[in-house]
């Protein structure tokens, strides 16, 4: 297993380098001049020239790239043109917020989606299956921003149960932190729950028909044991892959959700950086996200191997 992970990490290096080139070039090709954005109203030529020099914007593009990647390898992603803070600091500040949101959303998605999928497969064709499918379809088709606003109106404004916005770092006040993050995580989690439910359902349907489930019943096992120990374990193999691949959807959803609930996370950092043409920040974020994606893929394959004994021998 360790060898497998090591091997995958090694292969990931050229991928990440390629992505970094792509990100860097894309940024350079986009319209808009960061120096103009930076200088604001004060557009005297000397000032602009000074800024260009300061940020090495006059160097040939490959020199700029190599400088950037060389520093990045040493953990320096440059300075935000906007705030003058190191990009790594910004990311380190915002990332935990988004990770907390994502983990809580995934938690909601899993505790809603997987049991609902199991139940609707097990009760296939009954009213339970129908209800689960209709709810899932609604979950997929209701936009997050609408659900978010409705929940704010209901839960915060009318009922006053949870705060409508804001953020409390988990380390400062865990309970308050969970409370503020609860609603956004739920909103973000519901769409994923629907996807998960449908995958779980179809995997379970296949497995429940299998010969080994019949064997389990032939042993006289109770239905709980048949479903959980014999069916679910096999059905979860593809579902786990789906969960890890949902990571992308989760991140995209997080950007939007953070806007709705004014959470100062990664999503807000991205949006601000793009609007401000804060190159260094955008590049840093995209690079980090790409690395995270690759790690999630490796994790997904590793989990698949753990759950699937046939794979782990090889």
């Amino acid at each position, binding site marked *: 297993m360790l060898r497998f992970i090591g091997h995958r990490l090694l292969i990931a290096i050229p991928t990440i380098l390629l992505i970094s080139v792509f990100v860097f070039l894309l940024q350079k090709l986009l319209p808009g001049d960061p120096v103009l954005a930076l200088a604001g109203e004060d557009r005297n030529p000397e000032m602009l020239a000074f800024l260009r020099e300061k940020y090495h914007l006059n160097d040939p593009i490959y020199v700029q790239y190599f400088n950037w990647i060389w520093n990045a390898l040493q953990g320096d992603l440059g300075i935000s043109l906007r705030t003058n803070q190191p990009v790594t600091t910004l990311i380190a500040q915002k990332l935990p917020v988004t990770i907390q949101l994502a983990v809580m959303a995934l938690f909601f998605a899993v505790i809603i989606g997987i049991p609902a999928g199991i139940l609707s497969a097990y009760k296939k064709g009954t009213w339970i299956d129908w209800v689960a499918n209709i709810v899932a379809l609604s979950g997929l088709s209701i936009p997050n921003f609408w659900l978010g606003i409705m929940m704010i109106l209901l839960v915060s404004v009318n009922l006053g149960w949870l705060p409508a916005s804001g953020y409390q770092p988990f380390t400062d006040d865990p309970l308050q932190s969970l409370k503020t993050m609860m609603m956004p995580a739920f909103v973000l989690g519901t769409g994923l729950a629907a996807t998960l439910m449908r995958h779980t359902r179809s995997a379970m349907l296949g497995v429940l028909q*299998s*010969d*080994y489930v*019949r*064997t*389990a*019943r*032939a*042993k*006289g*096992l*109770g239905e709980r044991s048949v479903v959980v*120990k*014999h069916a679910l*374990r*096999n059905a979860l*193999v593809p579902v786990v892959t789906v969960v890890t691949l949902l990571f992308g959807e989760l991140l995209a959803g997080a950007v939007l959700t953070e806007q709705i609930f004014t959470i100062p996370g990664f999503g807000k950092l991205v949006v601000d950086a793009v609007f401000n043409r804060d190159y260094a920040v955008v590049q840093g974020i995209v690079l980090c996200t790409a690395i995270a994606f690759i790690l999630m893929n490796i994790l997904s394959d590793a989990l698949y191997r753990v*759950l*699937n*004994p*046939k794979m782990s*021998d090889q």
Partner: protein
Amino acid sequence: MTEAPLLDVAGLSIRIDGTARDLVSDLSFTLNKGETLCIVGESGCGKSLTALALMGLLATPPLRVTGGTARFRGDDLLTLPPAQMRKLRGDRIGMIFQEPMTSLNPALKIGDQIAEAVRRHTELSEADARAHALEMLRRVRIPAPETRLDVYPHNLSGGMRQRVMIAIALANTPDLVLADEPTTALDVTIQAQVLELMRNLQRDTGTAMILITHDLGVVAEMADHVAVMYAGQMVETGPVAAIFDDPQHPYTIGLMSSMPGLDGGSDRLVTIPGVVPPARDMPGGCRFAARCPFADAQCAQVPPTTSAAGNTSHRVACWKAPLEQQEDAA
């Protein structure tokens, strides 16, 4: 006939919900302690459905038992509440399926899959159940059993997996084993080994067995009694010697004559001209009429009743039985 039979099936009928024709129709047979009944018949004649119905494992819906009783140690298997049926399954009745490659859970170790069956029906501790699983692997003659406890099914060949299935089915020394074509999926040499193993284990434990097969060679080797099924019905049943030496039903006669001799006999039952009528289009009279050389107008109109042939438990469902006179006359 001092003792009541271990299993007494009477009038078993199975159909698909919402249809009018039975897939299995009015099936009756008995099985004594320690004996082997072979059920033979062409593909699709309802052999597996019969076994699954006795196990309470029919895929309901759409399949449903619509009539009959199956007395087993004082209970009716067909109407027993699910919780009580679960207590019998895997304990008093074991089942071996046709497909060794897919019948074991790919995600669980062999030892655990056997031990689980033991723990479900006994008070044994985890360690004791594991020891028992090891003992079962030994008894089904799996080489190096200690090392096999912790392997997954994909590490074993088909023959080895079927041995594991046998170990599971016999783990609690059941009174009855249902074996649905246990060797059909295996190579010929492996088939012989597995059958011999089953026969030895059966002799040691006194377990009764219903063995479903296509293979008359297997019947000759294993059976005490034979039940011949055609299109969901029992057409003839009796002691193995009577069925082989004195078959009465035209279908059985056809089967026997398609067999090239007992020693080499492993031919599939496919040599009678014609095909089985589809379940949704079953004739009103004898279901074999369209293929039967002796059929007449009565056969096509009225389903034959079952009559005794000879003074044993040999019974046949045919208007023309006993057939000797007909053949002599012809």
